[in-house]
C-alpha cells in the first residue's frame, strides 16, 4: 500500500511538473508549484525524512508561494508571453544532466540499507567516542558543532546571506514620493507628517 501511494504521488508530481511548463497563467503556476511542494513533502514524509518534509512544506509551499504572489503583485503581469525561440539546447542539457544523475544514483546504497557506509563506521564512532573526543553529552550537538563544524558554519553563512538578500530586496519601504498621486486617500496627506503614514517597517524588518 505504501509503495502504491509512493507511485501515485510521484505520478501527481510528474503531472504537476508538466503542467507547470505549459501553463501560461502565472497565478496558476504559483498555485501549481505549491501543490508540487506539498506532494514532494508527502513523499519525503513517506521516506521518513520528517525534517526535510517540514522544510519543504514551510519553504516550498509556504514562503515560496507568498514570495511568488508578492512578485506577481510587484510586476503586475498575469500572463507570460510564449517565447518563440527553440529550447532544444536547454532540453539536451537537461537530458544529459538527468542521465548523469541517474547513473550516479545507481552507485548509491539502497534506501534503508543497514550496510550503507554511514551506518557502518561513522555513526558507531559518534555514539561511542564523541563523549571523550568532544566532551558534549549530547551526540547531536557534538556532531553538528564539532564533527561537522565547517559544514554548519557554511550553512549559517548561506542562511545569513539569504536573509541579507531578502532584506535588501524587500525590507526597504518606498519613499512617499514614489507613489503616484492617485494612490493617496483624501484624508491623509503624507507630506504633512501624519502619523498614519510614517513607514514603520524599516525598524521592524531589521529587528525581526
Amino acid at each position, binding site marked *: *500500500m*505504501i509503495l502504491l*501511494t509512493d507511485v*501515485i*504521488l510521484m505520478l*501527481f508530481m510528474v*503531472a*504537476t511538473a508538466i*503542467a507547470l511548463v505549459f*501553463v501560461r497563467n502565472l*497565478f*496558476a503556476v504559483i*498555485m*501549481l508549484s*505549491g*501543490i508540487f511542494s*506539498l*506532494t514532494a*513533502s*508527502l513523499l519525503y*514524509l*513517506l521516506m521518513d525524512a*520528517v525534517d526535510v*518534509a*517540514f522544510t519543504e*512544506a*514551510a519553504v516550498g*509551499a*509556504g514562503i515560496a*508561494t*507568498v514570495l511568488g*504572489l*508578492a512578485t*506577481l*503583485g*510587484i510586476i*503586475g503581469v498575469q500572463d507570460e508571453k510564449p517565447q518563440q525561440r527553440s529550447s532544444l539546447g536547454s532540453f539536451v542539457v537537461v537530458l544529459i544532466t538527468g542521465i548523469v544523475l541517474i547513473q550516479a544514483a545507481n552507485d548509491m546504497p539502497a534506501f534503508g540499507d543497514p550496510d550503507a557506509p554511514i551506518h557502518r563506521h561513522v555513526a558507531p564512532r559518534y555514539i561511542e567516542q564523541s563523549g571523550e573526543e568532544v566532551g558534549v553529552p549530547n551526540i547531536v550537538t557534538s556532531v553538528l558543532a564539532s564533527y561537522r563544524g565547517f559544514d554548519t558554519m557554511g550553512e549559517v553563512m548561506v542562511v545569513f546571506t539569504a536573509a541579507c538578500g531578502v532584506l535588501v530586496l524587500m525590507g526597504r519601504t518606498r519613499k512617499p514620493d514614489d*507613489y503616484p498621486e492617485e*494612490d*493617496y*486617500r483624501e484624508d*491623509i496627506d*503624507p507630506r504633512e507628517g501624519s502619523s*498614519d*503614514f510614517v513607514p514603520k*517597517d524599516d525598524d521592524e524588518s531589521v529587528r525581526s
Partner: protein
Amino acid sequence: MFAAATAALLVVMGCALLRALLGPTVYDRILAMNSFGTLTVLMIAVLGFLSGRPEFLDIALVYALINFIGTIAVCKYVMFTDLGSPTRGPEWDDI
C-alpha cells in the same frame, strides 16, 4: 480500513489536482490548492496510522498552519493585487 482511507484520499487528491490544472478561473485554482493542502494534512494523519506511527499527527498540525498562512496570502493578493501595503488607509494597513 486505513488502506481504504488512503486510496480514497489519493483519488480526491487527483480530483483537486485536475481542478488546479484545468480550472478556468482563479478561484478554482485557489480552492484546489487549499483543498490539496487540507488533503495533505489528512494524508499525513492516515499514513501515520497506516504505518503504525500515530506520532505523525503533530506534523499534520504544522502543515495545517502553513496551509492557512498560504491561503491568507493568496486571498490578500486576489483582493488587493499586492501583498505590501497597497491601501494607505489605517484600517486595512497590514492584514
